[in-house]
């Protein structure tokens, strides 16, 4: 039984069958990649996982509880954090504030009218945020505005914001999209390190094979809305069906 269980999910948009009978099981503490060519239904599946879309049939269970129909903040409070294709951070706030906000969210829940003490008087939050920032070696940048960071630093900040909440599942939506090779490799290293150090469950949606094969322990290949195969990277690499669907090679 995995931490995230997707069972029999179907989603139609008008005449288009975006997802057809998707079954997926992400094991705890593993890195699970979902790959597929453009239009395979990766993004639709992700949107079903985070409650943005509700599938026509089927269920999505996280840790035994359904995530369907829940709001994004409720899903996050359940322990699912999300990293976006382009880093989503609080650009007008400082790096330090960016990391403190998730700390407050984790401690105080979705809403708290907390308007008397200053932010800095919350010692536990301050310490937590400093520890996190030093872990991603951004402590020296803590007074910078987040929008003035380089793209790689924005990605790291976003990761830090997710990790400081100690999520049970980290969803990554094409974390290296549009990056140069060097940045991609840096991101891979960062993710590897996070996984090794924190034993965190990750689900990665990606179409860059290099990223997938360097990180994943388990790979699901989607094609035309349905899972084609699910296997270890070694087995996927040589799989004829995958080559056919993904690389467009005719057998």
């Amino acid at each position: 039984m995995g931490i995230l269980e997707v069972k029999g999910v179907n989603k139609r948009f008008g005449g288009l069958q975006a997802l057809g009978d998707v079954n997926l099981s992400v094991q705890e503490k593993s890195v699970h990649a979902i790959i597929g060519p453009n239009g395979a239904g990766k993004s639709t599946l992700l949107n079903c996982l985070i409650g943005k879309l509700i599938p026509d049939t089927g269920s999505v269970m996280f840790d035994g509880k359904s995530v369907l129909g829940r709001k994004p903040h409720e899903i996050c409070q359940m322990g699912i954090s999300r990293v976006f294709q382009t880093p989503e951070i609080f650009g007008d706030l400082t790096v330090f504030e960016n990391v403190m906000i998730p700390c407050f969210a984790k401690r105080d829940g979705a809403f708290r009218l907390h308007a008397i003490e200053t932010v800095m008087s919350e010692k536990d939050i301050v310490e937590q945020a400093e520890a996190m920032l030093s872990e991603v070696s951004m402590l020296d940048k803590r007074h910078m505005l987040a929008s003035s960071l380089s793209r790689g630093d924005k990605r790291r900040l976003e990761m830090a914001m997710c990790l400081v909440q100690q999520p049970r599942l980290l969803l990554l939506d094409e974390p290296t999209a549009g990056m140069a090779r060097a940045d991609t490799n840096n991101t891979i290293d960062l993710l590897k390190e996070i996984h090794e150090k924190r034993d965190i469950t990750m689900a990665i949606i990606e179409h860059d094979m290099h990223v997938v094969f360097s990180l994943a322990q388990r790979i699901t290949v989607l094609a035309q809305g349905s899972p084609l195969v699910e296997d270890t990277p070694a087995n996927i690499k040589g799989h004829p069906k995958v080559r056919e669907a993904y690389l467009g090679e005719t057998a």
Partner: protein
Amino acid sequence: MTDQTQNPPAMTTGAQSTVQASRGGMLGLTANDFRLFLIVLVITFLAPFILNPFPEGSALAQFNAGYPDLMQRFVIFGIFAIGFNILFGLTGYLSFGHAAFLGVGSYGAIWMMKLLTLNVIPAIIMAIIVAGIFALMVGYVSLRRSGIYFSILTLAFAQMSYALAYSVLTPITGGETGLQIKNTDRPLLSNIQDGEIGRANLFGLEMRSSFELELGAWLFTFNAGYYIAAVVMLLAFYMSIRLFRSPFGMMLRAVKSNQQRMNYTGLNSKPYTLAAFVISGMYAGLAGGLMVAMDTQVGPERMFWTASGEVVLMAILGGAGTLIGPVLGAGFIKYMENIISKINSTILHEWFFWLPDGLENFVVALIYPFIGKGWHLTLGIMFMAVVIFLPGGLVEGGQRIAGWIKNRRGSGDGPDKDPEHHPKQAPHVGE
């Protein structure tokens, strides 16, 4: 990026220094915020002197703003703008109907005075409560949308309130003529003789009572109402500083910055914005209550959309999202409204009498459109200039001047003097 784990020692020192930066001030404020608060406090208390720099009877005396009526307006609209800024400056939601809360608060206050007591405190409390409840209702509906749709919804609510107050609700609002305290009003707790018109007071101290000080050619007026309003304004200002620096204030800035990330961080942005909206509405109600306390009458025009637009101008002109900006903006606009609009062509001719006749007429004709009823033109030009050249409002102007002076002194201790202090780069958490 591969060496992320190599500097754990930096963590402990960092934690200490950041925590230390929050000390140094008083009243729970940081040193800088406390200094700002002290400056505002001193200015408000010395306002009767500061605003009256020109001797009575001199040609420049009409630029004096140190008379009670105008000073009261400065602080009351300051409160209004501070409250508006909590919503607009922090969350970025532009309410275009804030005058409705001010008006509703005013009606609440005057009824309290008509029925219960002429003491201003219950009236002001009533104004805050009524405005808060009304803001809760309006905000609950309007905050379902954001951006321009939110602005339009709030505008619609405000105009509806205005129309209702003007006509349908005449039994409660007095319609077009509004409400004032009459000689037939018998407040429950105040002893009033038959036929006597009650006056607003604070435990017997009448709002309009003043103490006049003559120093040579100067005349300074110290008005009880002004000082009461000023104390309330300082309290409101203090509370807004606390709110700006609190986790709640940080969350509101997060709403403005990126709602998507906020939601995916496990925070529900809706109650945050609603709370900001209600707090902001209560500030407006407080301003409305004070207006009634100072001058015991209300009319529906107080809720008209131009009044809502005025507070938007105040916040943007002074510097939206800054602490002191809205107060500056409010003072600036009210000064223009009351001083520029009083200048007329006779006064202009007096000023330029020393010019040759033809030239005098020419200069007067040139300036005339900008004075008197034309003060809106002056305000519009000033507003455009500020928005174009100083997007951060008057506060940014002040910061630029301060920076320029620092540079001229040539000392290199400028930006790095206090690196642990709150970021100056963030334009909306400045002062």
